[in-house]
């Protein structure tokens, strides 16, 4: 027997001895669940992305504590994951048949998880009446092929952030974006009038879609067919690219995603950009600060006399289709999206989710926040691509082609539409 073979034999014997101990320990780890079942309590798991962030952890733990206090027979175990790994984790867990009972996700991921048969159809819990508390655009965020698979939980609209010391009247139309930005640049050399996202990032899709919706276009029509290459889509992309290529109002957008724009704004390099209500936190200064005083304005409309539009983006909470505890999981989901709990959650800086919340004083005590609340009624839900990542890649490539001049907006969108159809990413596929 060679030395190597002897070592292998020793390892095999060691594993043979240790393995039962590991299995036994694993079994013991599971035993509390059995014990809790014996005591008449049910333990459910809740996938909460971003749990490593102190503020998220604090809020999620408070939710669980309050829920368990009012529902003594149900225990909730928080399962953390980094935001950028959450989608992959859910896909893998659904594929393996062991996803968490309650899943927090981006609403744009709902179609993919439904496609994987990973989310429970919530209609069985009589969700219709509950969803009447939401505006239609918000409801549609988690409604896929006629059924609700999740409940929207964290909502954002978009508004125009502008420097109040440089701009007296914020633009109300696309033409005014150009004229106001040009005026700022003429008076304040070194400051760009406007900034936008063009990097390979989800925010590039959102920022382009704002213009698309304002022009009356949609990514998919009501039958789920691709409609992005419509005249409205081309008009919107032409204007988006022209802000950089023709008017030279923005720094090269391909270098930036939305998260980087507040840094430019705070450094005094740009006068206007579009972002969600959380941007106040990202800027780290109140609107009336002395260095870069700012305000939020409604997104400009395509032309005068037409109302504006904003993309509605939300995180949502759904139930794993094969959860062993559907009733307990639904009880938790129903409780955390109740009017009282939803209001508490939204008061952390989110746009009010339910219609009744919109008139509450906490959402109307500042002009800054009221602007975002006022945009909800003009909201258009993020499109329901059957899988978001490849869809995002196609859209960003189209935007980048138009910005770099590799293709005309019409060519870029025609190519994108063709790719979406080929890859069956439209909900009607």
């Amino acid at each position, binding site marked *: 027997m060679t030395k190597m073979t002897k070592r292998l034999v020793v390892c095999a014997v060691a594993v043979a001895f240790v393995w039962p101990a590991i299995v036994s320990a694993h079994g013991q780890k599971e035993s509390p669940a059995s014990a809790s079942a014996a005591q008449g309590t049910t333990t459910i798991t809740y996938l909460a992305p971003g749990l490593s962030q102190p503020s998220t952890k604090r809020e999620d733990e408070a939710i669980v504590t309050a829920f368990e206090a009012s529902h003594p027979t149900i225990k909730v175990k928080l399962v953390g994951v980094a935001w950028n790994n959450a989608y992959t984790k859910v896909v893998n867990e659904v*594929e393996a048949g062991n996803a968490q009972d309650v899943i927090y996700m981006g609403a744009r991921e709902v179609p993919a998880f439904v*496609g*994987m048969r990973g989310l429970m159809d919530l209609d069985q819990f009589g969700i219709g009446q509950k969803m009447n508390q939401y505006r239609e655009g918000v409801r549609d965020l988690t409604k896929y092929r006629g059924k609700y698979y999740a409940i929207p939980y964290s909502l954002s609209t978009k508004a125009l952030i502008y420097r109040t010391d440089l701009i007296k009247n914020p633009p109300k139309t696309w033409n005014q974006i150009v004229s106001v930005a040009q005026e700022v640049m003429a008076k304040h050399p070194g400051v760009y009038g406007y900034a936008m996202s063009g990097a390979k990032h989800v925010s590039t899709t959102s920022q382009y879609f704002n213009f698309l919706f304002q022009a009356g276009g949609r990514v998919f029509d009501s039958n789920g067919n691709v409609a992005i290459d419509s005249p409205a889509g081309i008009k919107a992309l032409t204007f988006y690219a022209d802000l950089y290529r023709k008017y030279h109002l923005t720094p090269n957008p*391909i270098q930036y995603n939305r998260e980087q724009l507040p840094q*430019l704004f705070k450094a005094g390099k740009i006068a206007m950009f579009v972002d969600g209500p959380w941007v106040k936190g990202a800027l780290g200064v109140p609107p009336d600060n002395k260095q870069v005083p700012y305000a939020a304005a409604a997104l400009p409309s395509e032309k005068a006399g037409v109302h504006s539009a904003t993309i509605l983006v939300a995180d949502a909470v759904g139930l794993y289709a094969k959860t062993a505890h559907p009733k307990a999981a639904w009880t938790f989901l129903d409780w955390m999206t109740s009017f009282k709990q939803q209001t508490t959650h939204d008061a952390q800086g989110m746009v009010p989710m339910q219609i009744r919340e919109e008139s509450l004083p906490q959402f109307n005590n500042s002009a800054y926040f009221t602007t975002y609340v006022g945009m909800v009624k003009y909201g258009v839900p993020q499109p329901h691509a059957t*899988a978001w990542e*490849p869809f995002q890649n196609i859209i*960003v*490539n189209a935007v980048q082609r138009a910005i*770099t001049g590799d293709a005309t907006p019409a060519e870029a969108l025609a190519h994108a539409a063709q790719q979406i159809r080929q890859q069956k990413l439209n909900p009607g596929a």
Partner: protein
Amino acid sequence: MGIFLAGLVLYPILKVFWESTLHNILTRPDEGIYFVGLDNYIKLAQDPTFWHTLGRTIAWTTISVSAKVVAGFIFAMLLADRFAFRRLYLTLLMIPWVTPIVVASVTFRWIYNGDYGDLNYYLQQLHITSSSIAWLGHGVTAFFAAMTIDVWVGVPFMAIALMGGIQGIPEELYEAASMDGAGMWTRLWRITIPQLMPVIFVTTTLSAVWTFNSFQAIWPLTGGGPVNATQTLVVMTYQTAFGAFDMGRGSALATITFAILITFSVIYWRRVRPR
């Protein structure tokens, strides 16, 4: 040893190859999982994006490895001799090697910024350029900007490995050559480089494999853009397998990458190995 090799190397390779013969999109279980033979490979062969990406990857690897060898050799020659503060310079040289590439990429993203980046600032101060360049905003410049990071990270390994090789060359060879009247260039071409060939062979092979598979220098910097200007095979594989969750096509891309690298290694080894 055979069991370990079979379990840790052969099994994953065969598993990936088997996956590449399946239609399996994790997010589309309604389409089912079924055997498609070589269909994933045929579809890739018919996809112009794949061929553009393959060509870009070969260019990326060739240029980057060449730059690393040249820069590494220069540093190795400079640091092979004993001189004051040599250890300090060696330590400084190692900094890129020990810096997490993701951190480097994020830092470089700001250095490359067309409007406020340090690179443009210094180029304009030195009157090399008159206006700002959006390095990551255009295909060609983004490609070389990403490559610069890859080279920056890879040079220390090359320099240290080559320096070890240079220090291993017997001093008597140089003394004898000098007595025969050989100048600096002659000694370099006739002694140093031929003596270094075994080291150069090993380091370039390793570097080529690492560079071909370089992901962290590209993904945080450009995400493969603008458009697809910095998309290499490994980025495309990642996007296909873990973005679109098309495990069949993603596995086909991984298998092709493996086949290219193993073919390269064998041919290179046969042609360049010291006889």
